[in-house]
């Protein structure tokens, strides 16, 4: 069953929507990656800086609904400082749980997963350069399979 909007738009989502953490751009990012959800025009761009196999710093910007923007902001918090190994395993359920929206309906699930897609594409483009496109291609597959 779909969630009611009172469940969806809880205080925490509204807070991340109105006061997004890690919002903005980085001075000298290793990767800049951006994607949109053509259906509704949601837009997320991420700037990522790596160091010693870890996410040294990450920022996002974009525009869109509360779900897409809160999810992007929460994702940046989840991955900050983590190793590539740790973040490679991130899946849709991790994001939905962080948002507290495990049963989001089909009309809105893309809003929640756009940031994960962008993040995975960012990791892919970093690794593709480091270890080669073929080695990294599974991450790209995961990203494009999200929706």
């Amino acid at each position, binding site marked *: 069953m779909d969630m009611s*909007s009172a469940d969806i738009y809880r205080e925490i989502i*509204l807070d991340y929507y109105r006061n*997004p953490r890690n919002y903005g751009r980085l001075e000298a990012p290793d990767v800049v990656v951006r994607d949109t959800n053509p259906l509704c*025009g949601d*837009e997320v761009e991420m700037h990522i800086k790596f160091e010693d196999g870890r996410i040294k710093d990450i920022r996002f910007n974009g525009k869109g609904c*509360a779900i897409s923007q809160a999810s992007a902001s929460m994702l940046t918090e989840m991955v900050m400082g983590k190793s590539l190994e740790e973040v490679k395993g991130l899946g849709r359920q991790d994001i939905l749980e962080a948002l507290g929206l495990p049963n989001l309906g089909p*009309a809105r699930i893309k809003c929640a997963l756009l940031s994960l897609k962008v993040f995975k594409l960012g990791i892919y483009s970093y690794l593709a350069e480091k270890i080669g496109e073929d080695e990294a291609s599974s991450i790209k597959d995961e990203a494009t399979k999200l929706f």
Partner: protein
Amino acid sequence: MLSMLDIERIRADFPILGRKVRNGKRLIYFDNAATTQKPKQVIDAIYNYYMNYNANIHRAVHQLSEEATEAYEGSRAKVARFINAKSDEIIFVRNATEAINLVAYAWGRANIRAGDTIVVSEMEHHSNIVPWQILAREKGARLHYIRIDHDTNTSRDDHEKGEGGDSGGDGSLILDDLYHAISHGNVKLLAISHMSNVLGNINPVKEMVEICRDKGIRVLVDGAQSAPHMPVDVKDIDCDFFAFSAHKMLGPTGVGILYTKREILDAMDPFLGGGDMIREVHKYDAVWNDLPWKFEAGTPNIADVIGFGAAVDYLNTIGMENVRLYEDELTRYMLSRLTEVKGLRLYGSMDADRRGAVFSFNLADIHPHDLATILDEDGIAIRSGHHCAQPLMERLGVAATSRASLYIYNTKEEIDRFIDSLERARLIFKVGG
């Protein structure tokens, strides 16, 4: 004037309006600018064709084909009368988009040259922009935009919530831009919407045709939002082309209508080649069929054209004057109720005489998709997004708007429930004030 009793009777013709959605909520359908619902008269006409006289048209002597041809051509005559045209000036295509593309390809390619100017406006639907971009690029012509009256006083900083900001201007066209284009360039075509699918504003197309008169400028009117909602007389407007879609006026999907003045059609080469559009075919050449069949290659959408004929009958029974009057009443009511909602920003004219029942707005810092989700939960179908008018969104300084668009079967009581739902959204989003 339609009474509430008439509206109840009209509603009873639309089976879908009795549907429950989202756990038993009665459906409130406010997405009519995208597509309207269909009365059972239209559904029955399509059903009846397939059940009783399904046949290809024009090329057979048997009875079924005769009946199908008569019904198909009967629809053409009805549509012609509906907009005060002649039957041979009506071409059936798939939708308004295809109608505009037909003009771009068949007329545009032969008549637009390098250095020419095509004038459109900032409020056009993508279907009245992109075909002209393609044509202009191909020919080395220029696209010129008539601006809308709107001041954006807001910064476009992405992070600034509550996009939009204060503005003057009700989105009406700045006609000086048309005069300017004409005096500074070789304008060959004006392509302009009759009613905006975002702002609801009705444009002074007759006056604009007058401005273009005797200057060798052809005028295409995109009537996708006007033909369903008010009386249209193409001879009175005196435009050269008029495009609209059946599915936005109680008809089925898959039928678009292009009206073109007879003298232009005569001189125009066909758009698609194939069966039905020819009189004679030899190995290396062919003679085109008469109008309008010259422009209808291949088997057309027979069933849905017949269904559309039933939609035109239905609208004629109500009377387009009455449609306009009733929607005017709904519009006045909606405008007064919307102004009561704190933090609501409406785009488009506040003058009911100059607009139709299409309302685009933003509510505080609630993103339109979030708003549409909340309204959907109350059984209310609205649209959120850019409404295929991204240049207009850019001009308004917003990424998206919410849009409620009404039709003949909507009621003031539904408007009340819609307003209640907006208030609920303000509570859920904890909008202050």
